[in-house]
């Protein structure tokens, strides 16, 4: 039996059973999106609290409908939630009308992503786009576009075949006459990275 870990803190912990959906048919959850969300939960656990509105003793979901749906399915398949409760935050609303307005506000995405900001962000963070494709749904970016336009099967196969090669230790035999010089280069801090040092030194030693 697998346990879904809790990796965030809400103002309270509640049972999933107590949550009632409020959004009706506002949003749909495609099988593909559901699969991504499930992958994300399996990988990361519960990372964000559910937002709910309390009404006549009921807990009405404001933000987190899809997560609740997926979590319930997972519980049905034998998963358990760490401590059996999920983190939640209570949203204030005067009435149902305002609570539904909150649903739309919480669903809004005011900031915009674009290809450039997305790639700079992922590049800086060292995130793997293929990995993200399995768990993130960002319609603006169309993560699948690269896979749709080009076939990378051969590159994928080669990449898999060569995996582990970076970990190989390559011993370079430096001609004796260069040892003093190479030591000096190292002492001078030449080649701030192993890559530069390796290529630069190998070139000068006539090894490349």
């Amino acid at each position, binding site marked *: 039996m697998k346990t879904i870990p809790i990796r965030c803190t809400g103002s309270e912990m509640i049972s999933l059973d107590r949550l009632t959906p409020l959004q009706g048919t506002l949003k749909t959850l495609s099988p593909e999106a559901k699969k991504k969300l499930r992958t994300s939960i399996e990988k990361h656990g519960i990372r964000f609290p559910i937002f709910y509105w309390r009404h006549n003793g009921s807990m009405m979901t404001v933000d987190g409908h899809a997560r609740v749906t997926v979590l319930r399915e997972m519980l049905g398949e034998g998963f358990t939630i760490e401590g059996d409760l999920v983190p939640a935050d209570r949203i204030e609303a005067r009435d149902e009308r305002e609570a539904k307005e909150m649903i739309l506000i919480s669903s809004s995405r005011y900031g915009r992503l674009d290809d*450039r900001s997305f790639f700079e962000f992922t590049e800086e963070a060292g995130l793997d786009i293929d990995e993200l494709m399995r768990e993130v749904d960002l319609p603006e970016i169309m993560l699948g576009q690269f896979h749709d336009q080009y076939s990378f099967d051969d590159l994928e196969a080669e990449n898999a075949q060569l995996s582990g090669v970076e970990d*190989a230790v390559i011993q370079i035999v430096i001609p004796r006459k260069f040892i003093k010089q190479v030591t000096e280069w190292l002492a001078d801090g030449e080649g701030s990275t192993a890559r530069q040092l390796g290529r630069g030194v190998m070139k000068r030693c006539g090894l490349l």
Partner: protein
Amino acid sequence: MRAALIYASRSATLYPLPLLKIGAMLKSQGHEVELFINRLPRGQFDEAWVSTCFTYDIPAAIALIRRLKPLVARIRVGGIAATLLPEVFEHLGDLEIHRGLLPEAEDVVPDYSLLGHEPEYSIAYTTRGCVRHCSFCMVPQLEDRFTHEPHWHQRLHARAQRVLFYDNNWLAKPIDGWLEDVAHLRRLTRSGRITSFDFNQGIDCRLMTEERAAALEGLPLNPIRFAFDGKQEDGHYQKAVRLMIAHGFTQGYFMTYVLWNFTDTPEDVYYRIKVSAELTAEFGFQIASFPMRYQPIFSIDPKRGYVGKHWTPLTRRNFSMMVHGLSTHGELSFNPRGDRLPTAVAEMEYYFGRDEQEFVRMLNYPKLRELFHRRRASMAYLRAQDRIREDQEQEQEEEVVNT
């Protein structure tokens, strides 16, 4: 009066020639001067001359000037970045912004002693400006007229045996004046005063002729820098390389600027790099490409994040990664001798793809970084194995001879 000369550029690597000239001029007027490279002056100064260079270094230059203001009463700002974008400095207030060249310092012999060490090279111009007006280039904005500097040879440092020429288009000079320059260079070389020279901004391959290549024969021009920035140079570039080789330029190396991320396509860049790889394979010595990523002239983006019309963030990132991964100090060269990859072209194709289509597909592969480094590591491993085997075979041969 004491003047601080400040070179406000984090990215520039060459000597700040304008400040060396201004320093000499101020010294001749009886002032004291001191040079500071990309840092605040130490001590009391009456005025500061700040030289700027790259526009993407402007944020750093502004930060430096802000810290300088409380320290020095009078601040003059000039140089390339201040000429192109004076308004970004004007809003700092209380600065004297100077655009373009400083005529009173132009004919001054630079004072290299300000560097605080013996210079490794002299910097000179035989011309200013350029006859071409390429839209990617800032020279027309900075030096709008093509003029000649006939007395360049009188302004060289007495002991620096290397000369770096900053000419934008030396070959555009009328042939008589150009031949005079060549005669000066030959005289300086014969006398041992200089041992090598370099036209750092590149030589216009479209203007290379049999006559000019013959005139240069025997001179220590090294490296030989051409630009293959687009289709306009296709054919001219190959011809210019062949002419130079035919006139004996086989001892040094060729280095070719390759503009990208402008209006070019990835296919076009692939072609231009491949041409140099083919020439390397044909002649058996290094004809390197130096990819230069275009950044808009009037941009102060310190991240240099511009993405060209035919590039995407992914393809741009992947190509930059390939260039950095394979180049030494920005120069992309392929093994002229051949080894496990038998020719320079084979090596180029191994890393950049067999043809333009494969190159484009690779550039769009999100995990290219991983694959590329694995290919490199794999090739290094195979080469090391070859070398060990060769050494073992040689040892065995020696043993046979000894017995």
